[in-house]
């Protein structure tokens, strides 16, 4: 069993999450961010979240209006909205996996880009003023290329999971299985190793093209470490159907474990198991 640094008296993840919230959600915190970081990282992430919230609400409302009101209890409707993006277990699943490239891109920007705030801040503050925008831009682009390359892999994973689960008549439990799988990954030594590597910063360059190369290389390496660490967490919302609640929980979890120098991975695994239990419960409700 992998090490966990858990002290019950010291909820590390919650403390880390509170610190992240203070940085990203308060005026003072946002003002403290280096200018290019806010414009290039935080603002697009906020826009992506707005898009997700509006899109999910729209879908849920559309489904609600399509279903006969008398047969759908409102509590169940809420759960379906929060948990599975409006898809109740009675709803027919489409033949192809629900993962358009646009959806993947929006998810990456909304859920992964906020974790870039610490390294991007470091890069910005340790670059010449005239090169800050360039440095952060190159870093974020190189990082996103890795996630773009992960898209076909995610598509394959999702397709095979959905095919297997359809064959077993087990699609309603997809969310629970996904959450349980992600929880188990949290406890492995590989996850721990990759997460620690996510705190690595590069040796900064002397400016100009030499620094550009370092930014691109670092963005790519950071993307690989990050994708390795968080890939399963990112596929989880898709398996469950892009539920809003699931996405928020996963994002909060990733931010908290990224922010803490010694994250409590046992606690994050427990959160994911609880999520799996909730998904299972709502599947059984149907």
């Amino acid at each position, binding site marked *: 069993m992998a090490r966990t*640094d858990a002290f019950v008296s*010291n909820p*590390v993840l919650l403390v880390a999450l509170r610190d992240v919230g203070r940085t990203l959600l308060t005026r003072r915190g946002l003002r403290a961010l280096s200018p290019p970081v806010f414009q290039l990282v935080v603002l697009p992430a906020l826009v992506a979240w707005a898009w997700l919230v509006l899109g999910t609400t729209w879908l849920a409302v559309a489904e609600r209006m399509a279903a006969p009101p008398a047969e759908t209890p409102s509590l169940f409707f809420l759960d379906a909205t929060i948990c599975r993006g409006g898809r109740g277990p009675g709803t027919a699943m489409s033949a192809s996996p629900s993962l358009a490239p646009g959806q993947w891109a929006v998810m990456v920007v909304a859920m992964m880009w906020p974790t870039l705030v610490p390294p991007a801040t470091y890069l910005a503050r340790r670059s010449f003023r005239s090169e800050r925008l360039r440095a952060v831009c190159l870093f974020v682009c190189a990082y996103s290329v890795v996630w773009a390359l992960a898209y076909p892999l995610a598509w394959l994973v999702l397709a095979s999971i959905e095919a297997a689960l359809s064959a077993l008549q087990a699609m309603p439990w997809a969310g629970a299985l996904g959450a349980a799988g992600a929880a188990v990954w949290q406890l492995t030594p590989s996850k721990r190793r990759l997460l*620690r590597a996510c*705190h690595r*910063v590069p*040796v900064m360059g002397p400016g100009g093209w030499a620094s550009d190369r370092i930014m691109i290389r670092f963005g790519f390496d950071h993307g690989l470490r990050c994708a390795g660490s968080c890939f399963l967490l990112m596929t989880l919302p898709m398996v469950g159907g892009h539920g809003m609640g699931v996405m928020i929980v996963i994002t909060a979890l990733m931010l908290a474990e990224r922010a803490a*120098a010694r994250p409590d991975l046992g606690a994050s695994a427990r959160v994911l198991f609880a999520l799996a239990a909730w998904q299972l419960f709502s599947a059984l409700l149907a």
Partner: protein
Amino acid sequence: MVRVRRNVLNLDAGDRTLHWYSLAVEAMQAIPPTQYDSWWFQANIHGDPDRSTFNPYFSRCQHQSWYFLPWHRGYITAFEAIVADKVARLGGPSDWALPYWDYTEPLSVQPYARYLPEAFRAPTQDGTRNPLFSRRNTPPSGKVGLTDTQVSRAALKEDVFSRAGEGVPPGFGGPPTGFSHAGQVSGELESVPHNVVHVQVGGNMGLVELAARDPIFWLHHANIDRLWEMWHQEPNHDEPTDPAWRSGQRFTLHDGSGAVFHFDCNDMIDTRAVLHGYVYDDLDNVETDEDEMRQTVHQTANKRLALEVFMRDDREPELIGTSDSSLDLLSGAPVATLSLQTGRQRLMTLKSGDFGPPPRAYLNLENIKGSGQPGDFMVYVDVPDDDLEPVPAGLLTTFGLTVASDPASEHGGSGLTRILDITPVAERLGLRDGSDTLQVSFEPLQPERSDAADGYIPHEMELAMETDEMRGAMDEPPSITVGRISLYIE
């Protein structure tokens, strides 16, 4: 009953403090490392060299962080409680207190300030193993090679306890962080004299994972704690009010009876309220002319900086020059040349500014990585092609280097970062608008000798715990590189 911690070098001839300490250490060293009152358990709290065994109390020490001072205060006081309990059980006094080793005392006052106390010097006593001896880079005379600069109290003049931000000195106590077993930037007191003494004593003391196995570690940290208390008693020196420091992180240790004891930084401000409570016998900050570095460090300008930081949060330091490649500090005469972009930046005259406070200059040594125990270095800066000699800018200390360089560590092996305020030095060099080059050079400050193993008799418990990794850590050949050297102006 509040205990009194006394200067170990000023104890009376018949004083038995160290005698009881030795007996208690011997007793604790015989206890297996799974029990809280084992010597090895207490040492592993600081750093656990054998990472395959998991214990939630091990490797919890805080470094390169604003938690460094309060955590170590809790740590050594809990240790003091455990030792005092052992001393009482062995028939000793009930008010035993940990003494401190004040190596910062001027040599004109205490000529043996930079020698290990006598009881710690010999590997054996009366033919048996001396529990107070350990692997060190010190000769049998106990002399630790320490210059005035290396044991300077200059850090006590730093008014700001903690400061955030890349490129700026982190303050007296260290930068704001979360839980930080190993980080990048050390606070001023942590760097000098704390890190320096670790490196110059060497051996076990030179490595984070083994340092607390040396019985002198605790007397060293008692002095660091005392220096914090001396800083605290100055009228304009205050610990941070930020709740993230005061109550944002809780730590857990054991007290003298074995009960678990939780604390946060708020609990560590008043020494009389920490566990059994303690005070120091002498908190006078005696100033002499011996310390050149102390005189070059900012004084009134520093007070102004503290006010500026409070008033203008958005005053951000700016990078104005960097070296163009990494530098191996063990290669002949290591020199780096920084190209400065002074022409394009705002007014950079480093004399009194016409508008507002004068700019300050900070030299950053970034991503310092290496292995083994390469020792400390004196850092010199120079504007080339003039008649002025290179001027000493400060010390680069390497305690924690191997942990910081380890890719498996908390910061992924990003290395240490040392930040020196070189404003007074820059003025002496005539650094101003139009200067386009700065040279930075390093001079190694080696310990008295390099062989740390002579005469040391390992305890059988220690031999049972020793791994290849530990043996390797002690014998690793030294190496050190600085990733980039940069200059910031604020």
